[in-house]
Each structure stands twice: as structure tokens, then as C-alpha cells.
């Protein structure tokens, strides 16, 4: 890495919490471990800490690289680093692998102390609220009483929103990007197809596939392929792949090989995903998405739900995001307006669909940088 604006070499750390925690679903875990990374220095008053929450397939590895894996760049590296919009010269940035994850935090692949075997399907369904509660325990561990900001895209944005509701006094600003206050029926439908793909894979074994020495690769692959379609926009897919064939002579083969470039791309993405992501974590995370609905306890009234938030809000959406379209962000913005909360809302013109939030679109990065700059002063 020669990028001077990179945080450079990073090392994951882990924190062990040896006390029982009861999850929203009613299950109690005897204890758990969270893997996390930090960038920058926590100041003396611990007032410059920013938590970055990950989405479905993300991890604690938000920025920088590992010494032995120079190409394993953090998933939001373009945003975080010295001189970048979330400037690690000024902020102490924390990335955490959520409970139930598959990157080292306690999850379905961990050993269940009751059985001595991996939890597998016995790992409880963990919700956004549970993630935030356990992130708060990590904040305690790190000596952070109040985050300067909690930031996330997509499912990460849900966590940022939940922070302002579960711990209104522990977060000064929430940055909610390409997110939604609750999934639509269509969003849940996509998740259900993904789950069915995984659970009907003969190698799934009711979620206990580890002990059979197999992975439900086919199901996980299809889940990822479908997810990928929802992350991109029709326009961008058309631009990138169109109807291009892989076959150089341009002739149709009249069989079921990956003939179109888009087929090949999706198969590649699906295959790659199965080499590093756990199917049980995928199932679990889609349920966390489905269940998130802070308005539910208020008769579906989001305005009432957000009344207890005290943070300043930055909300952003992307014009071609059809998974969590701009109108979903509008719901959050209007509910905040009802409560007269400070809110900035950016609707960024970007052709990359839902995944736009991971890109470094100049308009997007300029406005998020300006907002973060305001937090620092």
C-alpha cells in the first residue's frame, strides 16, 4: 500500500464479555466475543469516537489492509483514513463484526459451550437491537460514553438509527445512508427466496452442516447472486453488461452455459461469496433485516418511534437505489421533521443502485465529508 490516505496496516482485536446477555428473541447467551478494529486515536475526553456499522456481508475490517493480505482492503476504505471524509487524523473510528457474524465474533460457527460443537442452527436469531446493545458493551469496554457519530449504510444505517433510539444519550450524530426504517414486503420477499435457496440445499443439514464437513454452497451462491441483482441498478447493469456474450464469435449456443456476461458475472460473485461467508450468518442477518421496525412498538407510527431520538441526523439516499429507494429515506426525514430534530438529507444522483453507498461518488463524499467536518468542530 502506497496510498498515503490509507490507515495502512491494521490489526483486528477482540473483546470477550463473560456475562449472560438475553437477546430480543428471548434466548440467553452465556457470553460472547466481538472482533473489532480501530483507526486513529481516541482523544483524552473520548469525544471523537465514531462507530461504523456493517451491512449484510460486511465485517469489522472497515479500512486499511492486513500485513499478510495486502489486497484485503477494508470495505469502506474510500471513506475512512487520514484526509478522507471520515478523517482518522481527527476521529477514532471503530469497526465491529456484529454478534452472529462469521468473521470472528461469536456466531453460528462458534462452539456452543452446552454441546461442545458449533452452534450452527442453534445460534439464536440476533436482531439489530441486539447488535446495538452489544456494540454499547464494546463502547463501554473502549471507554466511550458517547459516540461523536454512528455511521452505516443499508443494514448499517438501521443500526445507526437504532442507536439514537436505544441509547439517545450515547450518540451525538447518526449518519444513515441508503437505508430504510423497515423492510417492504418486496424486500422481505427477496430475503425469503435467499433463505429458501440456502435451507433447501441438500448440504444444509438443518443448519448443522459443519459437523457433516460440507457447506450449502449451491444455496448460498444463489442467495448471493440474487442479492447482487438487488444491489445494482437496471441502468448500470445494462451499461456494464448489456446483452454481451462471452462467446467471442457472438453466436448463441442454445444450451445452459453462462453465455451472457451478466450470467458469468453473477456466477463468479456467487462462487466467490461462498468461499468466505457463512450460510447460517447469512440466514440470521436476513432475519435481522426483516425484523427491524422501530415503529412497530408505536402502532406503526415512525414519528412516535423517533420522538426519543436526540442526535443530529445525516440521511442520504441514491437516485437509482430500488432496494431502499429515496422514498424510504424520506420516511425517516419526515419523521425527524415531525419531531423537530436536526437533519440533513442528500439525495445523490448515482447510477450504481444500492451499492452506490460504497462508492466514492464526488457529490456524495463531499456532502458526507462536510457533515462529518461539522461534527468535529
Amino acid at each position, binding site marked *: 500500500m502506497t496510498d498515503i490516505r490509507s490507515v495502512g496496516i491494521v490489526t483486528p482485536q477482540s473483546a470477550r464479555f463473560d456475562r449472560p446477555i438475553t437477546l430480543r428473541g428471548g434466548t440467553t447467551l452465556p457470553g460472547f466475543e466481538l472482533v473489532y478494529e480501530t483507526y486513529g486515536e481516541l482523544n483524552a475526553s473520548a469525544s471523537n469516537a465514531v462507530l461504523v456499522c456493517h451491512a449484510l456481508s460486511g465485517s469489522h475490517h472497515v479500512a486499511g489492509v492486513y500485513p499478510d493480505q495486502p489486497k484485503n482492503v477494508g470495505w469502506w476504505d474510500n471513506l475512512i483514513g487520514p484526509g478522507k471524509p471520515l478523517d482518522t487524523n481527527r476521529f477514532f473510528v471503530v469497526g465491529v463484526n456484529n454478534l452472529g457474524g462469521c468473521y470472528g465474533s461469536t456466531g453460528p460457527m462458534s462452539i456452543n459451550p452446552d454441546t461442545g460443537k458449533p452452534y450452527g442452527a442453534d445460534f439464536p436469531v440476533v436482531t439489530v437491537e441486539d447488535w446495538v446493545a452489544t456494540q454499547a458493551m464494546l463502547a463501554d469496554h473502549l471507554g466511550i460514553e458517547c459516540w461523536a457519530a454512528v455511521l452505516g449504510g443499508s443494514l448499517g444505517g438501521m443500526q445507526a438509527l437504532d442507536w439514537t433510539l436505544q441509547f439517545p444519550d450515547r450518540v451525538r450524530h447518526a449518519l444513515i445512508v441508503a437505508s430504510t426504517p423497515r423492510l417492504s414486503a418486496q424486500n422481505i420477499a427477496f430475503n425469503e427466496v435467499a433463505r429458501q435457496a440456502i435451507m433447501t440445499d441438500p448440504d444444509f443439514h438443518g443448519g448443522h452442516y459443519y459437523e457433516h464437513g460440507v457447506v450449502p454452497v449451491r444455496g448460498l451462491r444463489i442467495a448471493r447472486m440474487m442479492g447482487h441483482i438487488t444491489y445494482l441498478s437496471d441502468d448500470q447493469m445494462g451499461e456494464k453488461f448489456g446483452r454481451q456474450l462471452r462467446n467471442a464469435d457472438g453466436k448463441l449456443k442454445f444450451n445452459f452455459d453462462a453465455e451472457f456476461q451478466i450470467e458469468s458475472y453473477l456466477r463468479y460473485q456467487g462462487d466467490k461469496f461462498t468461499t468466505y461467508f457463512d450460510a447460517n450468518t447469512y440466514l440470521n442477518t436476513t432475519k435481522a433485516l426483516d425484523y427491524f421496525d422501530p415503529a412497530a412498538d408505536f402502532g406503526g407510527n415512525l414519528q412516535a418511534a423517533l420522538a426519543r431520538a436526540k442526535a443530529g441526523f445525516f440521511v442520504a439516499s441514491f437516485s437509482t437505489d430500488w432496494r431502499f429507494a429515496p422514498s424510504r429515506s424520506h420516511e425517516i*426525514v419526515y419523521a425527524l421533521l*415531525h419531531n423537530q430534530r436536526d437533519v440533513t438529507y442528500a439525495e445523490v444522483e448515482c447510477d450504481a443502485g444500492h451499492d452506490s453507498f460504497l462508492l466514492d461518488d464526488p457529490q456524495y463524499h463531499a456532502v458526507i465529508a462536510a457533515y462529518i467536518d461539522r461534527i468535529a468542530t
Partner: protein
Amino acid sequence: MTEIFGRFDFDVIAQWIQPGERVLDLGCGDGSLLKFLQAERGIRGYGIDNDPANLLACVRNGVNALQFDLEKGLSGFEDDSFDHVIMSLSLQTVRHTVVLLKEMLRVGHEAVVSFPNFGHRSHRAAIAAGRMPVSETLPYQWFDSPNVRFFTIADFEALCRERGIALHEGLFFDEGKRVEQDPNLNADVALYRLGRQA
């Protein structure tokens, strides 16, 4: 667009705003009016502007700004959720004039609008000489103007009377100085405080 006029209209608008009011500024530009009203009146303000550069400027100015398209209306805003809804020198840039004026008075208890007066003597002279007016208040050429509605003070007042919009107060200016006599001829900018018809 307030930069064209300096701050005299800010002072007028500030006089119409009570301390601590909830204020919505439509077409808020770089947020300088809201910033001014925050400082002078301690308002709780929000701006709407669809231009990303303006949104960015608002964030840097420390004001709440929302990137919405005014042409899509204010349907997401609740009735009476603001004391004043302001549209400073932008009314001529929106297509759905009447709908927006009505919406401003639904969302706000009162509306404040200011606009360049197309009927100003210099504009009339330009038309009489056969050319579209280009002036300090209408600084664009006909082919690059963001303005889509061209109207005079007399036109505006007639519209308000026809559509049941109460004209609570009007102040008129020429190059930043108050105009009392025949404002439709002598004023380059008009500011109004509007209300719902009793």
C-alpha cells in the same frame, strides 16, 4: 439567489419572524438566510434545495438542509408544522406556482415570498426597445434563465386575490431602497407576507 441582493431582504424577513419560530425556507440556496435567521431570531430552521452544490453549502453553513424537488410539492410536510414558510427570490423558478403557494400556506401559518418584479421600469424599457430585460434582478439571458415564470407585482396581487390568498403585508424595493410610489413601476423586488384567507 440571495447573493444578488445583498442582505436587505434578510432584514425585512427577519422583522417578520418572531424569536424561536419554526421556519422552512424553500429554494434555500447556500442557507445564508437560515443562518442569518438562526443568529438574529434563534429560529429552528430547515431549508429545501435540490441543487447538490447548494446542499453542500448549507451543510458547511451549519443549517439543516433537505435535498427535495419543490416541483414534487410539500406533501410529506404536515399541516401547520411551521410558523413561516419562506420562498426568497425563487417563486419565478417554479412551474407549479399556485399549488406551491397553497402548499406553503398549508404547511406554514404564514408564507413569506419575494420575487423580482418583471414590471420594473427598466424591464419595460428593455421590452419597449425590443429586447428581453437583463438586469440586476433578472440577471439571465433569455436562453439560460432558470426562471420559468415572468410576472409583475400587479400580476402577483391579482393572482392572490383570485385564489383566496391573503396579502398581509407587502414591501417594495428598488436597488435595496424602499419604494412607496407605484411599486409595480418603480420596485425591482417585492416581498410579501401571505396568509390564508380568513
